[in-house]
C-alpha cells in the first residue's frame, strides 16, 4: 500500500522540479535588485536608430540612452552640461568647451571634430535627414539643405580638439535646448565612413558616447542595453542593464506583462485603466507635450474659409466636454490655445503670463453667425462639411461626437472622412478637407515650435492660413533673443489664432501609466527619449 504512494510522491517531486526548471528557463523578473537590472517592453521596433535621420519616439528613446550631445537634461528637465562642460553664447555665435574625459565606447575621445562632421552630414541633402531643419539657426544651414551651398560651408568649426565654435544665421534664443536633440549628436568620421548607409543599422555598426551601449538587437523581437563603462559619467549611472524582451503595440499585452511582473511599467488605455483601478495600482500621469486641435482649410474655395462658419463652430465647442465626457481618459487636458500649458514663458509658464481668451459656449450667438454665413453666401441650405480624421478609435470617437454636436446645435451636416495615416496626410497636403482633426508634437522647448505652424510659408500649414500680421509676429519672435519681446509676439499670435478662429484647440495629450514601486526617479520627458532611466535607481520595497 505504501509503495505506490511513495512512487507517486516521487513523481510529484520530480514533476515539481521539472516545473521549476521549466519556469526558470523562460522567465526573468521586472527587476533584478542584485544585478541592478530592469526589464521593459517597447511599443514598436525602432525604425531608424541612425540619429542623423531618426524621427520617431521609439528610436529617440534608445538613442537617449546610448548617446549624449553638447548639453543634456537633468532629472527635472533643466539644461545641464553634457559633452560640453561649459559654453559662451551671444547673438552671433557660441563656443562650447568639451570635457576632455568624454569618450566613445571604444575608448577614443569625443572631440569637436565629431560634432563638425555630424552637423555637416545632417545638412548634406544626400543624407536626406528629415530633421535637418532643426539645424536652421546655424549659419548657411538652410542654403546647404536646399543644395545651394556645400556642407563644408556650415557655420561650425573646431578651433581645437575640444573647442567648438558655432556661428548663427540669426539670433536663436533656444539654441542650447537644441543641442540636446538627437540630430545634434556627434558622429566619428572614421567610423561613419566605414559604415555610411549601415550606420546604426545593427549592433556592430554602432559606437556610443552615452550612458549605455546597445549590445544585442534581434530585429522585431528584443534589445539589450548595458552600462557603457567608457561613459564620462558612468559612476552616476545606477542601473546596469536594461533588457527589452518584448515588442508589442497591443496595450493589453503590455499591461498583462506588467501584472505578471515581467516589466517595470505600462501605459494605460481606456480598458486597462479599469483593471488597474480595480487592483488599486498607483496611477501616474504625464503630459506628453502634444496639442490637438481642429484645423480649418483656409483655401478660398472651401466653405471653411468663411469666418462666420468658423466662429459658429467655435462657439458651440467645449474642450472640457470633449476631454472629460467623450475621451474620458485621465491625463488629457482641455486646451484653449495652440501653446500648451507646459511651455516656458519669460519667467513663469507661458499660459500664466499670457492666458488665452476662453470662448464660452453660446449657441444663440453661433446660430447668428450661421445665419450671417447663409446670407453672405446666399444659400438656404449649407453643403455637407468634410471632417477629415485618422482611423484610431480615439479619432473616430471624437469625429462622431463633433458630427452629433454640430448637427444638434447648428443643424450642420458633417461628413466624416476617415483615412489611414498616409492617406490622411496626402489629403491634408492637397487641401482635400474642410476641417481636419490635427495635432502637433513639439521639437524643442520654445513656443516657436508651435507658432511657426501657421506661418504662411510653413509647409506644415496644411490649411494654407495666410495673415500678414501673424507672419510679422513670427518674424519678430524669430529674430530676437529678448524673451520679453518674443513672448509678447507669441501672445499676439495666440490672440490672432483665437479671434480669427484659425484652429479650435481641443486637448493636450497626456498618458496615464503604472510603474513598479521598486524603481525610483524615472524621468518622463517631452523632448528626447521618454522615459529616461539615466537618473533612476532601484530600491527593494517591503511587501
Amino acid at each position, binding site marked *: 500500500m505504501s509503495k505506490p504512494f511513495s512512487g507517486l510522491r516521487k513523481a510529484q517531486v520530480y514533476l515539481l522540479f521539472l*516545473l521549476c526548471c*521549466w*519556469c526558470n*528557463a*523562460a*522567465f526573468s523578473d521586472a527587476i533584478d535588485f542584485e544585478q541592478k537590472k530592469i526589464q521593459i*517592453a517597447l511599443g514598436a*521596433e525602432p*525604425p*531608424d*536608430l*541612425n540619429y542623423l*535621420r531618426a*524621427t520617431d519616439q521609439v528610436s529617440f528613446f534608445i538613442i537617449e540612452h546610448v548617446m549624449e550631445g553638447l548639453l543634456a537634461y537633468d532629472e527635472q528637465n533643466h539644461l545641464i552640461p553634457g559633452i560640453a562642460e561649459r559654453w559662451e553664447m551671444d547673438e552671433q555665435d557660441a563656443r562650447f568647451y568639451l570635457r576632455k574625459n568624454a569618450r566613445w565606447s571604444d575608448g577614443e575621445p569625443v572631440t569637436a571634430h565629431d560634432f563638425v562632421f555630424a552637423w555637416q552630414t545632417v545638412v548634406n*541633402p*544626400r543624407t*536626406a*535627414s*528629415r530633421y*535637418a*531643419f532643426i539645424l536652421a539657426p546655424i549659419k548657411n544651414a538652410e542654403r546647404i*539643405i*536646399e*543644395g545651394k551651398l556645400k556642407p563644408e560651408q556650415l557655420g561650425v568649426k573646431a578651433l581645437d580638439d575640444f573647442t567648438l565654435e558655432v556661428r548663427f544665421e540669426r539670433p536663436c534664443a533656444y539654441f542650447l535646448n537644441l543641442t540636446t536633440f538627437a540630430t545634434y549628436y556627434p558622429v566619428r568620421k572614421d567610423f561613419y565612413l566605414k559604415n555610411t*548607409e*549601415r550606420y*546604426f*543599422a*545593427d549592433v556592430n555598426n554602432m559606437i556610443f558616447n552615452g550612458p549605455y551601449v546597445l549590445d544585442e538587437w*534581434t*530585429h*522585431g*523581437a*528584443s534589445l539589450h542595453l548595458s552600462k557603457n563603462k567608457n561613459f564620462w559619467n558612468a559612476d552616476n549611472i545606477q542601473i546596469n542593464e536594461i533588457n527589452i*524582451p*518584448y*515588442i*508589442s*503595440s*497591443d496595450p*493589453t*499585452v503590455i499591461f*498583462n*506583462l506588467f*501584472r*505578471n511582473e*515581467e516589466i517595470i511599467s505600462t501605459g494605460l488605455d481606456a480598458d486597462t485603466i479599469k483593471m488597474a483601478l480595480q487592483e488599486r495600482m498607483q496611477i501616474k500621469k504625464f503630459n506628453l507635450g502634444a496639442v490637438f486641435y481642429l484645423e480649418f482649410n483656409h483655401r478660398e474655395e472651401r466653405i471653411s474659409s468663411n469666418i462666420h462658419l468658423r466662429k459658429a463652430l467655435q462657439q458651440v465647442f467645449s474642450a472640457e466636454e470633449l476631454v472629460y465626457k467623450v475621451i474620458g481618459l485621465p491625463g488629457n487636458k482641455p486646451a484653449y490655445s495652440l501653446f500648451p500649458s507646459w511651455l516656458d514663458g519669460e519667467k513663469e509658464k507661458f499660459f500664466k503670463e499670457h492666458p488665452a481668451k476662453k470662448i464660452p459656449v453660446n449657441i444663440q450667438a453661433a446660430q447668428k453667425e450661421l445665419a450671417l454665413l447663409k446670407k453672405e453666401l446666399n444659400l438656404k441650405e449649407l453643403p455637407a462639411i468634410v471632417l477629415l480624421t485618422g482611423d484610431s478609435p480615439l479619432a473616430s470617437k471624437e469625429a462622431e461626437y463633433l458630427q452629433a454636436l454640430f448637427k444638434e446645435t447648428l443643424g450642420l451636416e458633417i461628413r466624416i472622412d476617415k483615412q*489611414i*495615416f*498616409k*492617406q490622411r*496626410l*496626402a*489629403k491634408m*497636403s492637397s487641401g482635400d478637407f474642410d476641417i481636419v482633426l490635427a495635432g502637433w*508634437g513639439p521639437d524643442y522647448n520654445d513656443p516657436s515650435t508651435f507658432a511657426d505652424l501657421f506661418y504662411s510659408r*510653413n*509647409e*506644415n500649414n496644411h490649411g494654407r492660413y495666410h495673415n500678414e500680421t501673424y507672419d510679422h509676429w513670427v518674424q519678430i519672435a524669430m529674430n530676437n533673443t529678448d524673451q520679453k519681446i518674443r513672448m509678447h509676439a507669441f501672445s499676439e499670435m495666440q490672440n490672432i489664432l483665437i479671434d480669427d478662429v484659425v484652429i479650435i484647440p481641443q486637448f493636450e495629450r497626456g498618458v496615464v501609466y503604472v510603474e513598479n514601486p521598486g524603481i525610483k526617479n524615472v524621468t518622463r520627458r517631452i523632448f528626447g527619449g521618454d522615459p529616461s532611466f539615466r537618473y533612476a535607481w532601484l530600491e527593494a520595497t517591503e511587501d
Partner: protein
Amino acid sequence: MKIFILKRCLYGLFTVWFIATATFFAMHNVPGNPLNDEKATSAEIRKNLEARYGLDKPLYQQYLIFLTNMAKGDFGISFTQKNRSVNDIIKAHFPVSAALGFLAIFFAGVGGVLFGALAAHYKNRWPDYLLIALVVITISVPSFVFAALFQLALVNLNLYFDIKLLPIAGWGSVQHMLAPSLILGLGTLAYLTRLMRSSLLEIENAPYIKTAKAKGLSESRIFFRHRLRNAVLPLVTVLGPAIAAITTGGFVVESIFAIPGLGKYFVEAVHQLDYTLIMGTTVFYGSYLVLMVLLVDILYGFVDPRIRMS
C-alpha cells in the same frame, strides 16, 4: 507526370507575376505617398529621398526596375524600417511565423484526428455531443478572443499561485511557442475534428470494413488498419491550404503574444504604405501559397493513385 509538374510550375509562375503586377499598380494608385510624414520635408530632401527609392522615375520604369529586381530576388530597402532590406525582414521573421504555424498545424492535425475519432466512436452519445458543441464554439469564435482570454487566465493563475507556468508573451523558447501555436491551430483543429468524424462515419459501412469484420479482425486493428487510413485522406486535401493559411495568417495571434513574426510587417506595410515591403511580402506570400497548392497537387498523386490515373 513530368509534363504535369512542369505545366503546374508555369501556371504558378504566371500567377505570381499576376499577383505582383496587380499589387504594384493598385498600390501606386492608393492615395498618399510613402514619404509623407507628420512633419513636412524640404523640397531638396524630398527629391533625395525619392531618388533613393527610385520614386523620381515614371511609373512604367519603376515597374520594369521592380520586375528586374524581383527576378533577382531583391525587393529593396524598406520605407519604414529604414536600415533593413525587405529580404532581411522576410528572412528574419518568416521562420518565426513558420515555426509557429507548423506547430499549430501539428496540434490541429493530431488533435483533429484524435477528437474526430473519439466523436465518431461515441456517435450520438454524450462525448460526441460535447465534442461537436466544442467544435461549433471553436469554429465560430475568432482566435484573438481565445488568445486574449487565455493570456488573462494565465496571468491570473500566475498571480494566484505565485508561480510562472507558461510565458504570457514573447519569443525565444519552446515554452513561448506552446500557447500561441495551440490557439492559432484551434480553428483548424475544430474543422479537422468535424471532417474526421464525418469521414469516419461515411466509411463505417464500406464493404472493406465489413470484410474486415467478417475476417474476425479485432476492433482496434480494423480501426487503425482500415478505417483510420481511409478516413485521413480528405484531411490531406485541406491540409495544404491550411498550412499556407496558418503559417502566413497568424497576425492577430502574433500581435497578442508579442511574437516577432512576419504577419505584423505585412499588415503594417499596408498601413504605412511601405511600397517595397508591401511588394516583398505580397510576392513572397503569393509564391508560398502557390507552392503549397502545387505541392499538395503533386503529393495527392502519391497518396491516392486513383487521382494520378485521372
